[in-house]
């Protein structure tokens, strides 16, 4: 028995109730905005829906077995709660979930586990440890028919049936409402060291970062921050340098971390690494990278570009000829955060035209709702892939009620 879905905000406190709400919405073809804790609500194309279904009351860590390296949490659980529990046991989410909230004008630490997976925004350690999606072992969710389903499980290796769990990563709530997520966790490193080089050009910095990640020392983070943004770090050696900063991180057991850092320093001699941060200073520095401190307190449009590292600096150089931009490179150059001037299209035409020559894709992370509604927030896909995406959407959500239009028109 289903009735009409009430307009307004719904925060069911059980999966069954959530499934019931979605089934009602499906019956009446009522679009709903799917939300976790809302920390990334201002990202993506605005959803036109009279009802919101939030998972914020589905907040509980349901399983944690440190010796199995596995944690399960309901989708609305704040990811910081999971991180705190893991830290008590010397473990962590190795993909280092990005905390976008503060850069969007919100508070830190508001993201939900479901939101982290639904957006698949992974932090600096992604180059070594993989993305959020790589750490998903299983998902429970409700599809657009209002049917509860599960995929995967709680074990490390699993090829039993199709991997719907990882496919839901980065789907922005348009395929299903995730209700419970099981993640692989890893031991937290005992020691962290960071080498800093100052004043490198973008091209030289990317070269240094690629060299670093191509060593056997398991570099777990590389970032290059252009000069006007570098001074926003609280690390005084960075502020005082008044120059771009290129940071390279090594994490390991203390002896290994020290050995690897000194070997890496030799390899990078040509780039003159002049400061070495210890564990405490390193952790503060990288937590500021993780929360995009460089871009906080600004309302200028912010883009996230994924590209092969070897082409990143050149891409940015060309865009900089026509747009006033400030840039941060992460993932040894493979991830470019690009803040542009306030223009009517947030620089979309120029950025996308340049990207078309270079390969890769761009997502508009921060912009006024009007801007986000009027242009492609996500990278337009080639027609065959777009057609396949529409069919995949229909396979999960045949009447198109889950976050309609959040990613693409009709999707």
């Amino acid at each position, binding site marked *: 028995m289903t009735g009409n879905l009430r307009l307004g905000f719904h925060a069911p406190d059980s999966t069954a109730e959530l499934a019931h709400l979605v089934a009602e919405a499906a019956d009446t073809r009522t679009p709903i905005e799917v939300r976790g804790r809302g920390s990334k609500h201002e990202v993506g194309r605005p959803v036109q829906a009279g009802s919101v279904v939030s998972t914020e009351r589905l907040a509980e860590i349901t399983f944690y077995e440190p010796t*199995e390296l596995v944690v399960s949490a309901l989708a609305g659980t704040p990811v910081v709660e999971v991180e705190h529990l893991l830290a008590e046991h010397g473990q962590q989410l190795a993909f280092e979930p990005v905390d976008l909230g503060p850069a969007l004008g919100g508070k830190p630490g508001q993201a939900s586990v479901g939101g982290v997976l639904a957006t698949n925004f992974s932090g600096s350690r992604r180059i070594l440890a993989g993305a959020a999606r790589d750490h998903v072992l299983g998902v429970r969710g409700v599809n657009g028919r209002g049917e509860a389903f599960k995929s995967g499980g709680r074990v490390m*290796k699993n090829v039993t049936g199709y991997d719907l769990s990882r496919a839901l990563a980065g789907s922005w709530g348009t395929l299903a409402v995730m209700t419970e997520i099981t993640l692989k966790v890893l031991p937290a490193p005992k020691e962290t060291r960071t080498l800093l080089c100052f004043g490198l050009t973008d091209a030289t910095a990317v070269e240094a970062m690629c060299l670093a990640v191509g*060593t056997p020392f398991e570099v777990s983070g590389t970032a290059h921050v252009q000069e006007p943004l570098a001074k926003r770090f609280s690390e005084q050696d960075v502020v005082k340098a008044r120059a771009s900063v290129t940071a390279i991180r090594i994490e390991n057991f203390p002896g290994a971390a020290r050995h690897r850092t000194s070997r890496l320093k030799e390899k990078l001699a040509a780039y003159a690494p002049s400061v070495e941060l210890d564990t405490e200073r390193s952790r503060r520095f990288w937590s500021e990278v993780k929360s995009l401190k460089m871009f906080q307190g600004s309302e200028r449009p912010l883009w996230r570009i994924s590209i092969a590292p070897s082409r990143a600096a050149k891409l940015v150089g060309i865009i900089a000829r026509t747009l006033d931009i400030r840039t941060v490179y992460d993932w040894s150059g493979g991830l470019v955060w690009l803040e542009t001037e306030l223009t009517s299209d947030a620089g979309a035409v120029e950025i996308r035209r340049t990207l078309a020559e270079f390969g890769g894709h761009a997502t508009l992370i921060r912009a006024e709702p009007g801007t986000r509604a009027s242009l492609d927030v996500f990278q337009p896909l080639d027609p065959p892939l777009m057609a396949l995406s529409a069919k995949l959407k229909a396979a999960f959500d045949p009447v198109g009620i889950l976050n309609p239009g959040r990613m693409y028109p009709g999707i």
Partner: protein
Amino acid sequence: MPHLSNGAPDPAILARREEILRQLAKLVPAPGLIVDQEGRRTFETDALTAYRCLPLAVVLPSTTEEVSKVLRFCHQKSIKVVPRGAGTSLCGGALPLEDAIVLGLSRMTRVLAVDETNRVARVEAGITNIAISQAVASQGFFYAPDPSSQLACTLGGNIGTNAGGARCLKYGVTVNNVQALRIVLMDGEIIDIGGDHLDAPGYDFLPLIIGSEGQLGIVTEATVRLIKMPEGSRPMLLGFDSSQAAGACVAGIIAAGIVPVAIEFMDKPAIHVCDNFAHAGYPLDVEALLIVEVEGSEDEIVALLDTIAEIAERYVPHVMHVSQSEAESARIWKGRKAAFGAIGQISDYYCMDGVIPLSKLPEALLDVGRICKRYHFEVANIFHAGDGNLHPLILYNANDPVELERAELCGAEILKRCVELGGCLTGEHGVGIEKRDLMPLQFSPADLAQQMRVKSVFDPGWLLNPAKVFPLEGRTLT
């Protein structure tokens, strides 16, 4: 008689075989089309040899465009297609159908590009797993997933089953190591997914295709991640008087914050057979053996192995031995990697691939032993202990149809137990035909329906490897 059915062949397709072969001959030049009975015989089975079936024909294209032409033709004529890499599937994933063609990728084996800066290589999907690592070894890189069959198995097959291996405890499985795919859909459309950048622009189709057992499309090219070789690596052997102690030691190592490259487990029967085969120097008087491998500089290796030895002491090991030379390390790994072959020399075996949560390891091993005893089978256990992926080998006589059926029942019971313990039916071998009818043990009808709807997105007519993965009855086709 083996009890799993391919389903009834379509008599209309069988009747049109000659015409179909004539058409195929126009699409794929002669060496790439096998129609004679003797030639097809080579492809009638895979590593699940109890099941055999002669296909209509075998097509071995040498380009993506040829694959596309063949699939478009088969799509138009409603002819089923069974993809095949090297035919090393242990679950009947490449078992042909009487009314299907087999499409093999054995002629598409090239390395197309190696990009050191971005640490990726683009290769054709018919390349063997080991050949990728060999091609980039001189630059100091390797491709991480390393299934035991890596000398023979193809990357395309690895993608089909999301293959793992021993090293995946540290480096992840196939889905974690592939960045892009070129895939041909059943209607012949060629689609590129991903690239030399790290994440997907819209939906991430890679994890759907990787592990889909050739049911969504034919992968013809892939861009794989390359990993820099470590400065060094070394295994140590830890022998215990009981499987329980070995299992507890594995949990102890991981709880201490150490994730070795590999933690492999063998029980007594496996130790004896493997050592006899490879002269690996395994201790023969222990009930359970762990091979623990670590990586790093010389100092790091020594420090890590010392720490592991300290942890292991708590579980009273009977033997603790660190490899003393490269040659010894190679022997130790040869014994493990050759395990299936070694056991194959003394008996036919039926290899299981269930996964259990690590904390249930002792319980699972006791249950495996108990179940096999009840069916009157000897069993050898070899598995990836770090991730709970069990490979019980049920020893039986394949020439006795009654024994085969009993072995299958025994295996099914083991897998059922794995699911009950919180695990799953298959960790890295795939569902194929073998575990197809067990899927309802792990999934509800709604779970399976959602997966099947995804199949229909890519292949609405269910022509690609259709007899696999999902029970034949009660399928959700739209």
